[in-house]
């Protein structure tokens, strides 16, 4: 009985001691605080353009889609998609697409400059060849899912807050 109590106390002590050493690896207070939402001025993005902003160390793509790109995104047969999601669920206003610019395969940043957007007019990831469409959905290559849509809100017509 005494041995069990002592052993149990030792186990509790060891576990409690281990916690600070594990917990210290998590983001510290300054890192968390610095991840405050960022503001984007939408007037600066021409139709067809993509702006990259940094939030919590990651790129966020804000894309001003053209009518053609919107139509491409909406006309896809969802049954052919690896990660079926209608375009309407991925945007709040059809002309604005906001996605986290991190490939869902292994974390590279997909290319989005004109001429580098891949076969689906969206993004092309240079690391392992994943191709995304104009809604940020995976169409071809090893990525298992669509580009993630972060939390964002529109402040009026010209400003957007991400985070």
């Amino acid at each position: 009985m005494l041995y069990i109590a002592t052993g149990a106390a030792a186990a509790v002590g060891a576990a409690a001691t281990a916690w600070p050493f594990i917990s210290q690896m998590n983001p510290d207070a300054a890192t968390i605080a610095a991840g405050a939402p960022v503001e984007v001025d939408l007037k600066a993005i021409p139709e067809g353009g993509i702006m990259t902003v940094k939030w919590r160390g990651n790129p966020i793509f804000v894309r001003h889609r053209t009518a053609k790109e919107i139509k491409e995104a909406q006309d896809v047969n969802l049954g052919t998609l690896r990660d079926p999601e209608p375009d309407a669920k991925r945007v709040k206003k059809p002309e604005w697409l906001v996605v986290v610019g991190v490939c869902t395969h292994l974390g590279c940043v997909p290319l989005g400059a004109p001429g580098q957007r891949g076969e689906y007019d969206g993004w092309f990831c240079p690391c392992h060849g994943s191709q995304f469409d104009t809604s940020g959905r995976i169409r071809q290559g090893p990525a298992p899912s669509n580009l993630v849509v972060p939390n964002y809100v529109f402040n009026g017509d010209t400003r957007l807050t991400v985070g």
Partner: protein
Amino acid sequence: MKLFRTSSLLAAAALAFGALTMANPVMAAEAGPTPERQNWSFAGPFGQFDRAQLQRGFFVYREVCQNCHSLSRVAFRNLSEKGGPEFSESQIKALAAEYPIKDFNDAGEPIERPGRPADYFPKRYPNDDAAKAAQGAVPPDLSVMAKARSYSRGFPLFLLDMLPGMAYQEHGVDYIYALLAKGYTKADDEKWNAYFPGHTIAMAKPMGDGRVDYTDGSPKTLDQYTRDVSAFLMWAAEPKLEERKKTGLRVMLFLLVFAGLLYFTKKKVWADAH
């Protein structure tokens, strides 16, 4: 067999004690009179900050100290964190916005924007040289001031400061209090301070009675201002003080129980070896 020799235990204690007697060096003789001990709510193993006092202390810092001194290691968000003045988050948002923070706009041009809770208190002067040019001497950053000043009570009194029941770590705030509230004693020389090493201080007496408007009914006296701002500086230097002492209590209780269990286990194991 008696393993527990009282004499050897005493010797061990004496040895450890002897070793620790050397802990605190004595300040140079010209440091002036020893500041008096004050009653601080945060002293001792169960000591905690007085929120209202920290809030008042912050107002004193903002109204008086901030005109020359920086607080660059403290972020606005800290003021609303647990264990501190605990202003509300909306108060902190409004407060932070009062401070202009240097940043760059989208075109990469340097700008000043309103502060956010995640920002740190901006430096009063861009660098030490600028501070010196403006003030004649560099006003030290106050972030860790309460831990960066001390005084010695001399041998053997300083030994008591580490012992359970008498532990005392508040020498820094005692010094700050003495310097501000009691040090400026020469009416004809505003840069003479009894507690400052060498007595010639670059900071002229920074405040007197009635300088800051308190809204909570606390006395608007130099003595009260100084107590409050000293407490605030202690928090600024040691924001985890409350968390530390609370954790310490739990750790100590656990260790005492664990040590007791081990002691009896040890006795039981050794019982058949005698």
